[in-house]
């Protein structure tokens, strides 16, 4: 099959839209921290994207999509993009490469939230490069690059395990290693720039259409299905979280937008396999589940600061399972539990569990090593004045 202009147009634009999610993550998280750390949060998203951009075109792509080695990792045949050309099947190979690049970039940006307001910039850069190489790249290979999970038949349409379970449980591990922010639980650490968070959330919602629909890799009915279920799931998540928060107090806008993100996360692996009515349930349940996880996390006194674990980790896990429950052969060719396919459900459970354990354990070890060598955390005084000044020499008020 030759290059199709429609499909190529589609994936080029989707690539740009997914790229916009990375600063979107930065703004989303930046609004949630105290003003003294807002530049740091946004800057880390840009830095994540920049370093992954270089890592991916040199080594990352080939580790993920090079010829399979034991189901675990890709070979080095595409080192420095060797053999990745402007020809391809429907879309150029090079376009597939860059579409995958933007996924890797945004995943690392999500990871930053667990260490908000206390990580040393230099250590973050080193950690980030290593993390994307030894956590993200294998996971991408497993699911999409010919690795064991894909071979087994695990379904992950747009990255429930690869992007969300990895970053969510990774952030949890990081938060455990780096420790709570100074004064956590004693001082107020309320979101200080909610409008920034809402703007970031809007950018995420927008970009997510490309994230999921683009994962069809063609402008076809499957892409349209992904588009529709993505939107419906986000809306349902926003609504359930909002009402749950309302029942316990006030319907905060942070709850609303967090619920939308929860819905978006949960539908990600499922978006090529389920229909709109299932999506209402998947998203609506994600809103409740992730809100519950957040409350649990707070009760435990754990400073996984901006809830990547609760939203991306737990939401991603639910999404992987939900794919095994609600998948229908009429859309993606595979049936799930409710259509009698217990097998698929078990595969999903296995895949999600392995991804969760791998991401958590490897991230934990990596963080400990960096902590012992470079030191993961800024000094108390640097944390006190904020990372904007201490790491970047900048401040939002002149």
């Amino acid at each position, binding site marked *: 099959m030759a290059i199709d202009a429609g499909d190529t147009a589609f994936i080029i634009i989707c690539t740009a839209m997914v790229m916009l999610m990375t600063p979107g993550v930065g703004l989303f998280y930046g609004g949630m921290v105290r*003003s*003294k750390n807002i530049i740091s949060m946004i800057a880390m998203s840009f830095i994540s994207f920049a370093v992954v951009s270089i890592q991916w075109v040199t080594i990352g792509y080939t580790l993920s999509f090079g010829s399979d080695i034991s189901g675990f990792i890709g070979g080095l045949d595409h080192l420095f993009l060797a053999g990745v050309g402007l020809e391809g099947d429907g879309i150029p190979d090079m376009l597939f490469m860059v579409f995958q690049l933007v996924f890797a970039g945004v995943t690392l940006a999500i990871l930053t939230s667990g260490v908000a307001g206390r990580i040393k910039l230099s250590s973050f850069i080193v950690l980030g490069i290593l993390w994307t190489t030894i956590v993200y790249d294998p996971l991408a290979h497993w699911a999409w690059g010919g690795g064991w999970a894909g071979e087994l038949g695990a379904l992950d349409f747009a990255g429930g395990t690869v992007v969300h379970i990895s970053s969510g449980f990774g952030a949890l591990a990081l938060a455990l290693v780096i420790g709570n922010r100074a*004064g956590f639980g*004693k*001082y*107020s*650490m309320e979101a200080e720039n909610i409008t920034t968070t809402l703007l970031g959330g809007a950018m995420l919602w927008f970009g997510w259409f490309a994230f999921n629909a683009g994962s069809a890799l063609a402008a076809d009915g499957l892409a349209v299905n992904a588009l529709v279920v993505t939107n419906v799931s986000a809306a349902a998540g926003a609504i359930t979280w909002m009402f749950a928060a309302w029942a316990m107090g006030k319907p905060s806008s942070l709850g609303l937008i967090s619920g939308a993100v929860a819905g978006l996360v949960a539908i990600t692996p499922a978006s090529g396999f389920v229909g709109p009515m299932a999506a209402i349930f998947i998203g609506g349940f994600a809103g409740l589940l992730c809100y519950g996880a957040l409350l649990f996390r707070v009760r435990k006194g754990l400073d996984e600061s901006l809830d990547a674990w609760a939203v991306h980790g737990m939401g991603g896990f639910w999404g992987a399972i939900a794919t095994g429950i609600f998948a229908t052969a009429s859309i993606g060719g595979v049936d799930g539990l409710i259509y009698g396919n217990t097998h698929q459900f078990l595969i999903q459970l296995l895949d999600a569990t392995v991804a969760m354990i791998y991401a958590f354990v490897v991230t934990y070890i990596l963080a400990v090593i960096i902590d012992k060598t470079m030191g993961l955390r800024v*000094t108390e*005084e*640097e944390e*006190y*004045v904020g990372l904007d*000044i*201490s790491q970047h*020499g900048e401040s939002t008020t002149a």
Partner: protein
Amino acid sequence: MKTVKAVIRPEKLEDVKAALEEKGYFAMTVTEVKGRGAQKGICLQYRGKQIKVDMIPKTEIEMVVGDEDVRPIIEIVRKSARTGKFGDGKIFVYPVDIVAAIRNDDEIVSE
């Protein structure tokens, strides 16, 4: 009447407010400020050379109270805002001549 003005760590505001409320002190005016104390701000070690970060965000609480309330308030603020580290802040007490309500014609004239 006196004005008690306390410059505290922003993250201690909730604690201070709660401690004051407990003793019946509610009225206050709060301003976001920046400041540095006699310690000349915080020094960050930066690749050998020191970078001085002065002008750290602080919160200023102003309470106009009767003369007899000054001491208790100072103690409450000290207790609730103290961490024992540099940067805890300062309390200043000023004389006030007149306190007048806007809503009605209530007035207290010192002396």
